[in-house]
């Protein structure tokens, strides 16, 4: 059972969290977005081995945040509130 640091609540067990996707997967707006670009946004994931940056939500407080962790050894290096890198704005 991993411990994840919610930026608002501190370390909590992983069962209180849901995965929200890879960080930086910015949404392209409009009906004229190319099929490839839209498919990339919807489906294409890097699934990196090693260091990752991901969006998670702490279900008990409802906050979405970014977390850096390693997908191999499960070490968590930190978490932060959503910033421009995640919004693209």
């Amino acid at each position, binding site marked *: 059972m991993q411990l994840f640091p919610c930026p608002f609540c501190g370390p909590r067990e992983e069962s209180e969290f849901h995965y*929200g996707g890879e960080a930086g997967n910015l*949404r392209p*707006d409009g009906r004229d977005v190319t099929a490839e670009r839209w498919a990339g*946004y919807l489906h294409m994931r890097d699934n990196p081995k090693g260091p990752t940056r991901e969006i998670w939500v702490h279900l008990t407080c409802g906050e979405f945040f970014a977390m850096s962790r390693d997908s191999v050894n499960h070490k968590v290096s930190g978490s932060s509130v959503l910033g421009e890198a995640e919004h693209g704005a």
Partner: protein
Amino acid sequence: MSASRLTTGGSDIDRARPLSFTFDGRRVEGFAGDTIASALLASGQAVVGRSFKYHRPRGVWGSGVEDPNALVDVESAVGRVPNARATTVQAVEGIKVRSVNASPTAETDRNAVLDRFARFLPAAFYYKTFMWPDWHLFEPRIRAMAGLGIVDSDWKPRQVSDQVNHHCDVLVVGAGPAGLAAAASAAAAGHSVVLVDDRTHPGGSLRHRAGEVDGLDGKAWVETVVARLKSGGQLVLSDTTAFGLYDHNLVALNQRHSDGRPDTLWRVRPRRIVLATGAIERPVPFANNDLPGILSADAALSYLRRHGVLVGREIVVATNNDSAYEPASALAAAGASVTVVDCRREGGAQAGTGVRVLAGRMVAVARGRNAVQGVLLDDGTTLAADCVLVSGGWTPTVHLFSQAKGKLAWNDQLAAFIPGEAIEGIGVAGAVAGAVSLSEALASGVAAVDAFGSSSPAPRGSGAEATLGVVSLWPKPKAKGRVWIDYQSDVTAKDVELAARENFVSVEHLKRYTTLGMATDQGKTSNLNGLALLADITGRGIPEVGTTTYRPPFTPVPFASLVGSRRGSMHNPVRRLPLEANHRAAGGVFQEYGGWLRPAYYGGGEAHASIQEEARRARQSVALFDGSTLGKIEVIGPRAAEFVDFIYYNTMSTLKPGHCRYGFMLSENGVVFDDGVLVRLDEHRFIVSCSSSHVAAVHARLEEWRQDRFGRDAVYIHNATAQYATLTVSGPNARQVVEALDLGATLDDASLPHMGVAVGRFAGNEVRIARVSFTGDRSYEISIRADRAEVLWARMQQEGRAFDAVLLGLESLMILRAEKGYIVIGKDTDGTTMPHDLGVAGPRTKRASEFVGRRSLFTEAGNSTDRNQLVGLAVREGEAPLATGAYGVEKREGRPKSIGFVTSSYQSPTLGRPVALALIERGAARHGETIDIQHLGVVRQATIVAPCAFDPEGRRLHA
């Protein structure tokens, strides 16, 4: 085998407290402190069970968790436990112990004949043989013949298992010399310590092997250390197995109790872990090495010194290392005649008086039927024996280290894998780390703690130090006879050879093909012998072959322990209506709908008739319905209108305050995710009314878009679903009933039209009245503070009486909405349904602003012309309703093909005929066509019609 109890000795037993229990119906005597296995041995019981596959007789082999043979079903006052290890379960007065996989008893098992056909039943025999005509024909009988204990299907928990969460600085697993030294050192350095051991008494090998620490006798030193830990406030848990080591240093412990309480699960989150888990003695490969009376040498010593049991009178000890000499000498001193057969040319130097040593020789064959009677050596010598002790070296118990993703390193000197590169925060000490002598073990315990940043002197062994001097003695290919590798799974050397011949040369494939290392012991005694043999056959080194993956649990853990109190409604709590008691008083029959407990129908009558009657009467005059489960999520803020525009498929920002609008929410892949009514209370305040079972998911989705796209300051979201009850009045006379409630709101159709919202008051509380209809009749949804709903509901029923009002359960409501073609998301839609499939195509083509899922509506799939679309289905006059889930079928190129399916189907009491909704390929353009509907082999015809079967002009909404 002629094991017996000596008249003296046995540190674990209390001879003043005799007890008795039954084994396969026979009375067995023992003492308090006996395990079931030690009592069975003391009573001379050689055969304690039958093997999994061949029904071979098997006896006690080990003295702890490693034992592969002595599995028993134990029935006591607290219930029946299947597949308990007789070597770890304490004997208790009056318990009933049954051998497993044996009938009627272990000694007289009627399936024992199977073993005579063993040569026809190698590994994978079943897969290869029972293929024709169908494995399932044979499976039940084969399963009945093979297997282990019997699960008590009537088992009920008498008491909930406790579960404890605990934090500490240092957790030490194993209370042998290394673990005790580590715990004492950590405590001295000021750490909070938890020390766990799976035995009843701490001490590990010091409880039965000679040892002296800092001048104290080993056992006395153990007691001193434990007493000091306890008096220092440290936690010492005995009878407790650390069975799993999980991410971020979570260690799971299962604690057994001797007072009848169910096991306790501990979740310990230590900052540091010291694994002092010891090592397990390996069997020695020779033919028939599974006969009862063949035991681990260390176990024999343990039974002698802990339980005062002499395992035989005429004992042969087969070994490849020094550790077997202490048992040999001790048994000789206790009166047995002992011959050591040591495969090393030099033999061991330390044989005690009366021990004969045959160096440079090996046991080739064990003889006997239901118990060992003698051995044949490789030089042709035969020796009579009623007991053979084996020591093939020691396998470090690396399970927890490996579970923590630790890499193992092969150690030639020990002929074993030991923990390799250190893992941060996890130390290893003692035999698991390769320590042989007592001083090494003690020093490694202290060093493991020092690595965390303290420093203290280690205790020292002050007596003779143990040596090992082990040489390889692995099973060899092409050996004569049946050399058993895995006792519990009935795997022989020949099975491993067969697997290798058939190219199952990966150790993971070997395991799955032969079942080597499976079952309840997970190969604790067999894995290394098996993979060493595979290495030999395939010409590889042992490290190259590697081990299978170690996974939790280390030993079986009762589900009751893992579950704790999370059973039934504590596991899956239902949500309850504020007015549940009132509905029950009115005869409501409750069912669970999407996590909510709701009245399905009212009255004690037959379900179908009651539901039909409710639906019929609802159309006649007026119906009352509790819709409190509907979502009520408030969206507030300066960008709220922009937000709901983005969230909904339909344009919502044009909605005027005091009105509501029906719309869809889509997923980003364009699929309809939820539907419902959005209420606009004022310029910056909306209420999202979503499906009852979707509230949590919709709320999460709104939060995600709010935080990701709009910002915390621009929109605020509050899920107020549980704060309000929503009570609905529906039917031709609905307005008269609502007027009689005297809510202080103007109810005429100009002020409160269909899809209008008004605010009123009832008994001093504000109520919200929405003209929203899920029945197709004029309806008023009245929302009030949940804690004030009871009075309003009573008043509604009272005023309804004059109009013959009927209470609607959820089932009749489903009929009413289906008559109207109103959909339920997830029932009348599936994971491909887009809004234009449901006849709502406008926003797709006309909307200019962005919304969730928009781009996906224009993909190749979204633009396809042969999509499944919502339709109604009419059956021929006088026919019964179609089955929900029945398929529409069409012949294409001579083969039947699915063209969709029935999503909802009911008998309509008002129309006097069935109504049905379906998703049918190109359905919207096929009204009037008759298609085949197939269900369970029966084909019927149905005509595609519009989804709405009742009042298609919608006059009753305004009537």
